[in-house]
Each structure stands twice: as C-alpha cells, then as structure tokens.
C-alpha cells in the first residue's frame, strides 16, 4: 500500500513537472507569434508610448498610429481589443501600467458597446500563453470561457487547439515570420461594404437596445481615477458609425448622454464624429460600424486636426 501511494505521488509530480515544462515551451513559442504581439509588447515593457489608443475593434481599425506618430512626433500605440467591452480594456490598461511607463495621453474610443453587459471571452486563444500573469488571469476569469482546469492542470488550456500547440513548438525551433503590416497595433481593413451590411439592416427592422452594465461603468470610473492619479490626459473619441445603423439603436440618445455626462463630470474632452459627413457615405465603411481604409484616411486627418489643440 505504502509503495503504491508513493508511486502515485511520484507519478503525479513527474506529470506536473513534465507537463509544466512542455506548457512553458508552447507558451514561449506562442508569445513570439505575430498575433500575440500586442500583449507580448506590453509585458516585455516594449511600448512606453506617449499616446495610447484604447477601445474595441473600432479603435483598432480606425485610429492610425502612423498619422499620430507623424503629426505629434510622439510614440503612439494602438491597444484596441476587438469584441470586448470596457472591463477587458481596463485590465489591459492596468497590465500596460504594470510593465510600461504611463502614457501622457490616452485616446479612449467609445461606442454603444463600451458599457454593454458582455461576459464571454472572444478569441480566448490570445490569452493562453499569458495566463501565468496574475493580471491577465484576473481579467480572463471575469469573463466566461475558461475555468479552473485551464489554470491549474498543466497543458489543459491547450486541449483541442492543436494548431496552437504546433505553432508554439514550431516557434521555438524556427523564428516566426514577422508581420510586415505591423503598425503598432493599428489594423485598418482594406475592403468595401460587405454584403451583410444591407442584410443587417433588413434583419433588424425593429431596431435593438444596448443594455448599459453598471459594473462596467464602475470599471470606467476606476480608469478615470487612475488616469487622474497618474496625470494621464484622457480624450474620449466616438469614431464614425454608418448613419443608418445609428437609427437602429433605440436607446442611442441615452448612451450618448451618458458619455457627455462623464465627459463633463470628469472634465474630459469628448470628440464625437458620429454626426460627421463620413457617416453618411457607405463607401467609407466595410460594415455598419467599421470604416475601411478610405474612411479611415478621411477620419484620421480630421482627428489629427482636432487633437492638435489637445496634444502638446
């Protein structure tokens, strides 16, 4: 019996050691992958930007680091997180502060989805190589998608994602191909209006409501307080949105009022481009809430012009 128990303990220890070792190899390889560049840049303390862009996919696709760098002669970095509400954006901000010097300015992209109640992990694979970071773990557990097994059983987080295991091991052997289109997190889309554009409007003839989540609002307040304490200037930017889609959001006015209230309460500049002429021409969009390269070019020249008085 004693031998059996000792053997079981030895087996468990050997498994944990070997599996953790293999997991670390995969983690290390995946951190080198171009698709994980943003998080890797943050935790490698490689960013230290003067201007930090935050928000959802609308930040990532709309706000050009190339334009900001050249106009303001300041290092900018785009940390737009596609499909996430403000909670994940806030954790990313804390992660940034943990490993980098605070930026002077934050351009915070806002839209109706910023405060929505949404707790499902999207593209969770991007977080897997970084789960040993306590802040990333805290961010991930505030959403549904991963559970205790992913954190405490070595290798479990990679089950059923064979391509990641392969890529992680491969990246340890050979250097991954660098992303030639890397613009420090900025990723414009060069495409015209997609076919779902019209069908989206057709499928939502009654319109829809976007619920504002009070917990997410609390995170936003904490964000503003932290920025004030660190003397970071926050500029709220509502980037262009196709005008017909705006009509679909039934409680849009109350959401816009909320942004305006926060802007005046915390003395933040709010640049609202949702009524700009860009919003009225579908040629500027690739879908109802994202600009394409044509729209982005027009928008960024306007944004740079408006920011000139605010960024010095």
């Amino acid at each position: 019996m004693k031998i059996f128990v000792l053997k079981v303990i030895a087996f468990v220890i050997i498994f944990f050691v070997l599996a953790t070792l293999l997991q670390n190899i995969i983690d290390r390889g995946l951190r080198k992958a171009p698709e994980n560049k943003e998080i890797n840049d943050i935790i490698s303390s490689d960013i230290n930007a003067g201007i930090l862009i935050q928000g959802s996919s609308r930040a990532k696709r709309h706000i050009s680091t190339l334009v900001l760098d050249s106009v303001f002669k300041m290092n900018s970095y785009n940390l737009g997180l596609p499909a996430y509400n403000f909670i994940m954006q806030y954790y990313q901000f804390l992660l940034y502060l943990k490993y980098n010097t605070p930026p002077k300015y934050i351009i915070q992209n806002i839209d109706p989805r910023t405060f929505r109640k949404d707790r499902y992990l999207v593209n969770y694979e991007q977080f897997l190589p970084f789960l040993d970071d306590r802040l990333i773990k805290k961010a991930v557990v505030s959403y549904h998608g991963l559970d205790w097994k992913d954190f405490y059983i070595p290798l479990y987080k990679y089950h059923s994602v064979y391509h990641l295991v392969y890529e992680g091991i491969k990246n340890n052997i050979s250097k991954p191909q660098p992303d030639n289109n890397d613009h420090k997190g900025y990723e414009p889309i060069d495409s015209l209006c997609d076919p779902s554009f019209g069908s989206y409007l057709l499928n939502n003839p009654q319109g829809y409501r976007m619920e504002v989540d009070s917990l997410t609002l609390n995170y936003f307040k904490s964000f503003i307080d932290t920025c004030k304490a660190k003397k970071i200037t926050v500029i709220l930017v509502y980037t262009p949105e196709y005008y017909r889609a705006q009509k679909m959001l039934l409680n849009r006015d109350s959401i816009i009022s909320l942004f305006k209230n926060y802007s005046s309460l915390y003395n933040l500049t709010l640049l609202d481009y949702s009524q700009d002429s860009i919003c009225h021409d579908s040629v500027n969009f690739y879908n109802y809430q994202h600009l394409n390269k044509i729209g982005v070019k027009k928008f960024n020249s306007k944004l740079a012009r408006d920011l000139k008085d605010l960024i010095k």
Partner: protein
Amino acid sequence: MAFIPIYILILGFTIIIDYFAGLYIEKSVGKRKKTFLVFSLIANIGVLAIFKYYNFISENLNFLLHGFGMDKPIPYLNILLPIGLSFHTFQAMSYTIEVYRGNQKAERHFGIYSLYVMFYPQLVAGPIERPQNLLHQFREKFDFDYNRVTDGLRLMAWGIFKKVVIADRLAIPVGFVYAQPQSYNSFSLIIATVFFAFQIFCDFSAYSDIAIGAARVMGFKLMKNFDKPYHSQSVSEFWKRWHISLSSWFRDYLYISLGGNRVTIPRWLLNLFIVFLVSGLWHGANWTFIIWGALHGFYLVFGIVTKKLREKTGLDKIPLLSSLVTFTLVCFAWIFFRADNIKVAWYIATHIITGLPYLILQHHHIIEYIGISKDELILCFATILLLECVHILQSRVNIVAYFKAKSIYFRWAVYLSLLVAIIFFGVFENRQFIYFQF
C-alpha cells in the same frame, strides 16, 4: 433519462420485492414457487413498463384510436426515465430467475442483496451481472493487492481515453450530420455512420472498462462486456462479443425460455427474431430501436437460412470479407439506432449509397464540412486506427502481461503519454455515456 433523488424509491421498491420474492421462491415448491417468480417479474417489468414504455404505448395507441375519432383517450404521464433503470431491473430479475431455477441460493442478508442490485460501478450501465458471479464476492474480504489495484486503474485509464478522446470526439461530426442529413452527401453519411459505430463502441465499452476497473480496484471481478465486436465474422458472432452481459441475459432468460433451438426450425427462427425484437425494445421506447432490433433479428435468421448456400460458394472462408460484410450490416443497423426518428433514419438508409456513384464520377466536393476541421477529421481517423491497432495487438498477445514485463520507465512513459493525450485530445464538454439513457 434523469437522476431524480426521489426515484431511488423505485430502486428500493424493486429491491424489497425481489429480496422477499427470492426468499419465498426458495421456500416454496410447485405452483406456489412459480407464483412468487411471476409476481417478482411483474413487479420489475411493471416498473419498466410504466417509466420506460407507458408514454410510447399510449402515444401509439392514441395515434391508432385517432383513426376511430377518439382524441387522445389515453393520458400522457409526465415522468422521466430513471437513470440505468433497464440495467438494474434486469440484474434484479436475473436473481429471482436463478433462485427459481435453483442455481442460486436466496440471499438472506438484506444489505448484501441491496448491494448486489445497487453496486455502484455497474448500477447505471452494466455489465448486467449474475448473482452466481457477484453475490458471493460481497462476503469475501479483500486485502490491498498492488497488482490488482494497478490492473484496475489501467483499465479505467483506457476507458477514460476511449470515452473522452475517441467517443466524444466522434460524437461531434455524428451529431452534426445526423441532425440534418438532408444537407450532406452520401460520403458524409457513410463517414458519420461509421464514426457512430466506433463512437457507440468506445462510449459503451469505455463505461464497462471503467466499471470493471473500479470494481477491480476494490477487489471485485465483473464479467467482460465487450470482446473486439467489430472483428466478428458474422452477426451471431457479433452478439457474442457485443454487450455480452445483455446478450447472454436474453439467451439465458428469454431465448431458452422460448424453447431456444430445441424446437422446429420455423419456431427456432421465430424465437431468434423475438429475442432481437425485445432487445431493440429494451434499448428504448422508440420505433427506431425496435427496427434496429428487428434488423439484427432478420440478419440472424437470414444468416441461418442462407448458411448452406454461403458454405457452397466458399465466401464464408474469407475472414476479412466476412468481417467487412458483418461490419457493414451492423453499421447499417446503427443508422436506426442513432437517428432521432424513423424519418431521419429512413432518409439516411435510402441515401447513404444512392449518391455515391455520382460523387465518385464528379471527383470533387466529396469531403464536406461535417462540424469539425480537417485536422480534427484526421484525428478522428487516427484514433480509430489506434483503437484497431490495440485490438489487433490484443488478439495476438496478452497486452497486460506484455506491459507488466516491461521496465517501469517504459510503462510510465506510456501512462504519461496516455494522460497527455487525454488532456490534449480529449473533449471535455458535458457528454454523458450513451447507454445511461437505457
């Protein structure tokens, strides 16, 4: 199928009935003895009839009576099927029958008898044990035996591998295709059906392995339930290797009671057909299961009728061909077992081959998306190949003995690989064992 705590009372009811029935059967003689057996069987079958078959029967009768202008005269009962009911009811019935036949002494210890019916490793999905094999083991004292415990754990690990890596992975494309077969070509229907054959084997045999292994760890020896069934060279051989505890139950208690083969040939064939029809009904209260059972009954009868003809042609003497034909027949029957209803089963059964020549001539679009990526599809085939390699190896060498003879480094390397494979390739969504529903 559900686990509802109050339903334990059903188990309690059958235990009490059968416990006392056993005692009275043993004490009685002649007609009185038979009366106690019949009483016990009625109680057991009655519970099954109410919980498993009542709504099925009432639904079909209502359908028939609707033709006579009656609108649902038989009420529908809002009840769920208790988990594992068919298994522990059959195990309980085998006890009273064996006591009646004089092959087993009635158990006087109520706790031991209850344990016989409720023995947790095999309570919900078998193997359906016989009192002669299990009851006496509850009186034995088991000391810790290193070899026995590791044997049990090894079997459990293999069972878990088969369940989470093979069965649950194959379940994804099978579920995808069977949910909407009209959207798929013949090739996809074939793949899904073959995958289901391996899914159900791995799912059910995995449960048996885990149950046998868990019992083994504690010192108990349960009967073998599967023996490489897809290597069978005839359907009758298949039933000697598939769900052995159930097929032997039907053989011992139904087939023999009907007269077995000691009757006229037509009656013998009818007996066989009845046994498989009942076996289908045992699996579920649905026409799909009845047709599945009837198909197997037909295969067996047809096999007997054409035996001489096949012997003349010599086709029976090619083992690979016999295995392939048997596997094809079994797979065809699985269509009815897996399909949600007759309509779906009929569609698949009638389209599984018909579109194939057209697809072959076309050369392209043969492989469709069936709910899994190309990598996962390759993985599905690889796991089936691995399973078959293990089975082939099993038929040539005693794997356990071979394994035990190897060094600890080799054995532990295999265990670690198995564990890593379960973690990497396992499917961990909540998927129950298929046979829990029976």
